[in-house]
């Protein structure tokens, strides 16, 4: 049985939509294995002192659902999601603090894990009252992202493969990383994340019959930043990643010896676009350029990856796992 962590990133919504979300999670027909609330509030509170939350925590205990309330580091929800991504579970069901799932949502999403062996992520309807757009004929392809609404916003009756998902979904944990180079608003973070899962060869699905009500709340929210530059910065990273999607990006922000070991596998990497510290060993563009283009270089940090994988094999094999 695959273990599911439910992660909720919250900010500014202690007494508006967050209680609705927690109640909905507690009352899922398929219980989660653990709930972690990542509290990114500017002034976090001890919610155990609050009557309503006392009841939630008791309900979780009685139902045997493990739970944790973690204070986040105020860097934005992508950092929070990455913590959840690496928390050691097989799957993560990410739920926004203003997105209220109906009781069958996790059960409906979860059953696709067995039905679709290469599943990377699965989402369903995200309906924002009062307007539910007609999404008939919507492709969900990344190339159409500027010209069509997100398929999850509308009604559909059959499952469909797409390139990316929005808002709330169930995903295979620890396969790819959230881009931590995005600004605090983390604009496009879930699009990038799910698209990268798809780029790694996993299927991204939208499936019917599971509705999450997006109670868009003008107050609070994990993205409650209005600075235009942040959105522009994130949009540029998003566009750059799309631009290089047909290339295998290689970033060697590491030592000379690592470059030498890596050089053995370079010929096997299809369509490599290399950024290198030692171009005399592995020719490539500068690391500064990579930072400018992609924001965060951690996804290419072989040492972080080996640590994450609890690696015991050779460095060369770690590079093979990363790039081939």
């Amino acid at each position, binding site marked *: 049985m695959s273990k599911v962590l439910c992660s909720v990133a919250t900010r500014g919504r202690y007494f508006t939509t967050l209680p609705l979300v927690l109640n909905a999670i507690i009352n899922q027909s398929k219980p989660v294995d653990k709930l972690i609330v990542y509290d990114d509030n500017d002034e976090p509170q001890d919610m155990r002192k609050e009557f309503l939350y006392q009841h939630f925590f008791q309900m979780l205990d009685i139902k045997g659902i493990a739970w944790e309330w973690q204070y986040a580091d105020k860097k934005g929800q992508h950092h929070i999601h990455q913590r959840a991504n690496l928390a050691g579970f097989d799957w993560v069901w990410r739920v926004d603090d203003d997105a209220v799932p109906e009781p069958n949502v996790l059960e409906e999403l979860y059953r696709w894990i067995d039905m679709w062996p290469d599943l990377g992520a699965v989402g369903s309807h995200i309906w924002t009252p009062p307007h539910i757009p007609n999404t008939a004929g919507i492709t969900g392809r990344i190339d159409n992202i500027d010209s069509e609404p997100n398929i999850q916003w509308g009604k559909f009756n059959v499952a469909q493969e797409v390139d990316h998902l929005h808002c709330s979904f169930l995903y295979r944990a620890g396969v790819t990383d959230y881009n931590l180079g995005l600004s605090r608003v983390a604009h496009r973070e879930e699009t990038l994340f799910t698209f990268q899962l798809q780029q790694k060869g996993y299927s991204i699905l939208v499936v019917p019959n599971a509705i999450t009500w997006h109670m868009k709340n003008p107050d609070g929210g994990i993205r409650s930043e209005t600075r235009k530059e942040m959105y522009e910065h994130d949009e540029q990273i998003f566009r750059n990643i799309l631009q290089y999607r047909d290339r295998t990006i290689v970033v060697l922000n590491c*030592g*000379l*010896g*690592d470059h*030498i*070991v890596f*050089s*053995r596998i370079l010929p096997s990497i299809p369509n490599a676009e290399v950024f290198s510290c030692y171009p*005399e*060993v592995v020719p490539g563009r500068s690391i500064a350029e990579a930072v400018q283009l992609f924001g965060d270089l951690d996804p290419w940090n072989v*040492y*972080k990856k*080996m*640590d994450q994988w609890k*690696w*015991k*094999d*050779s*460095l060369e094999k770690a590079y093979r796992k990363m790039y081939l």
Partner: protein
Amino acid sequence: MIIISPYAQKLRTNKENPKNYPYWEQLVQELQKTIHVVQIGVEGEKQLVPDFRKNLPIPALRELLWQCKTWIGVDSFFQHLAWDEGVPGIVLWGPSDPLIFGHPENINLLKDRSCLVENQFIWWEATEHSNDRFVKPKEILEHLKE
């Protein structure tokens, strides 16, 4: 001729790199009795033998490798370069794991796996140098005889 590559990369904290072998002086003293020893490294490193070739570019290091009988080094870029060049040698291991960072083509001398640090993927600045992690020169000399 034998090459020695005695030092791992200098740490940003200026502390001794925990991968540095502590008994070079004794080892070099013994080696020099029978063979010419060439030290390679960079400016600022301690000179152990009269023939210290500093800051050689990579092509020159590759060429030098083909002139030597063997080489002795620590866990640094040089062991990877020699592996890439197909010239086996002896690597003196301390806290880092030869199964991860080494190459089986070399003689990898590790005192004991209990000497390895638990987390192999942190910055080496976080690990203290300890002489106790390393084999003694006598063991290296025995391997050289083979």
